[in-house]
């Protein structure tokens, strides 16, 4: 395990030797699997412990009802409001729009309303975060293998699993998110792209151009698959939520 962790640190800083050592190991897949498992658990723990940060952020803003009252009252002082207040239909529309937009956006500013809500969010984030790292690694490696082979690469599937596992190491940057008010942003994804390029180039001994396209195309296809999966999950969830209501209405 020490070897894998050492290679992970080397790979994080784009050390070519780390990728070559992983490629030439006897069983790169199982070594890579160990590293991805550790990082997946770490990402899950960050999401879970991160609820403390969320709660701290939650208590650093005023009460939602007070803010809502001030915003609504402030809007009614605006000149355009004086114009629409003469029309009851426009007033009804304003009320509806205000409530709808508030419901939609309030959670973003006021965070979880209770410890229970934060805990549910943390557990959901931990499960999805951990699994997405793991599944993302498996699918990305398969895609990279397919594209690199198409572009004339010579590596084995075992090797790309091992080397792309090293490319998961930038996920440890998510640890910074444990601090309240810290935004990790897209750095982990960008850094992983650089590491994946090193992995593809090292395993398949491709020229920079072919390695670039194999890396980028795999990332694009993975992005499309993730979006489709997200849409699918959204549709199924909406259906499951709506079904009891429809059945109740029908009865």
């Amino acid at each position, binding site marked *: 395990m020490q070897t894998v962790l050492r290679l992970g640190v080397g790979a994080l*800083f*784009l*050390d*070519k030797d780390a990728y070559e050592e992983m490629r030439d190991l006897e069983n790169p897949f199982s070594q890579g699997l160990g590293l991805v498992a550790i990082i997946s658990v770490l990402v899950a723990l960050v999401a879970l412990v991160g609820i403390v940060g969320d709660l*701290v952020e939650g*208590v*650093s*803003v*005023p*009460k939602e009802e*007070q*803010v809502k009252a*001030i*915003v609504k009252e*402030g*809007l009614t*002082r*605006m*000149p*355009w409001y004086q114009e629409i207040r003469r029309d009851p239909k426009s007033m009804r529309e304003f009320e509806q729009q205000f409530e709808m937009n508030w419901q939609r956006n309030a959670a973003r500013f006021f965070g979880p309303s209770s410890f229970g809500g934060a805990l549910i969010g943390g557990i959901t984030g931990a499960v999805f975060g951990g699994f997405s790292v793991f599944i993302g690694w498996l699918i990305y490696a398969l895609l990279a293998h397919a594209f690199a082979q198409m572009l004339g690469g010579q590596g084995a599937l075992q090797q790309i699993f091992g080397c792309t596992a090293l490319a998961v190491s930038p996920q440890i*940057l998510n640890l*910074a998110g444990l*601090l*309240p*008010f*810290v*935004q*990790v*942003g*897209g*750095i982990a994804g*960008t*850094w992983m*792209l*650089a590491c994946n*390029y*090193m992995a593809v180039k090292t395993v398949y001994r491709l020229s*920079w*151009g072919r390695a*670039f396209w194999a890396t980028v195309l795999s990332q694009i296809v993975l992005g499309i698959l993730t979006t489709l999966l997200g849409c699918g999950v959204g549709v199924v969830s909406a259906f499951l939520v709506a079904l009891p209501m429809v059945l109740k209405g029908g009865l």
Partner: protein
Amino acid sequence: MVGEMLQLARGALSLDTQTFVAQREARDAFRKGVLFVVVITLLAGSLSFIVSTVKGFLPPKWDAQRDEVEDRISQVFKFLPLEMDAETERMIVGSIEAGLDIGFEIAQLPTPLPRPVKDFLQALGGWVTAPLLRLGAWMGYAFWVLLVAKLLGGRATLSQMLGCTALYVAPQILTILQVVPCLGPILAFVAFVWGLVIYIKATAVANELSPGRALLAAILPAAVLIGLISLIVIPVVLLIIIAAVS
């Protein structure tokens, strides 16, 4: 390590070719580059972090802050090339006034976390976030510059390119004084231009390209991005305006 950082910063600021060549040839060029970006960004934001934290312990001056904001807005209005009738002006000014009321009333509401603690945590969060954002932007942009450089005959590896271009961040140390009124924006502009020159030099040395080709490689991705945004955003804005007018 501190001595090495200082040497790197001095070499980058003076556009010393030897510093860039040494960075290109270093086995751990990328590691050094990451460390350099993180250290400089943290240093540059340190004064702002301290000032924000100290401000949290002082009683807030809401009236002075409001005057300052109103002054800035009126400055913007002076430079707007639009001519508007009295009714439109009344609507806009009235909406801005009400918007400021909303903002300042919310800011004065009590929070469960004491204000000094909240301000400290927010300042700390911003201070730690800055290097992460800069790392992401630097790495993301460097990929595209490297791609263009390669198409123009560049020979840098990814690690060399990132190691060398990281030096562009050196002049950002000037922005440590960004909290000083008037001087802050001027220093930020100087740091940007100086950083751009260092970036072009780094691209040239890392890829063994001529300065002209390095300039093209360094600015082409930004130009393409701006062009794409213009192609998409301007028609969308125009469509919204036409729809609103009709």
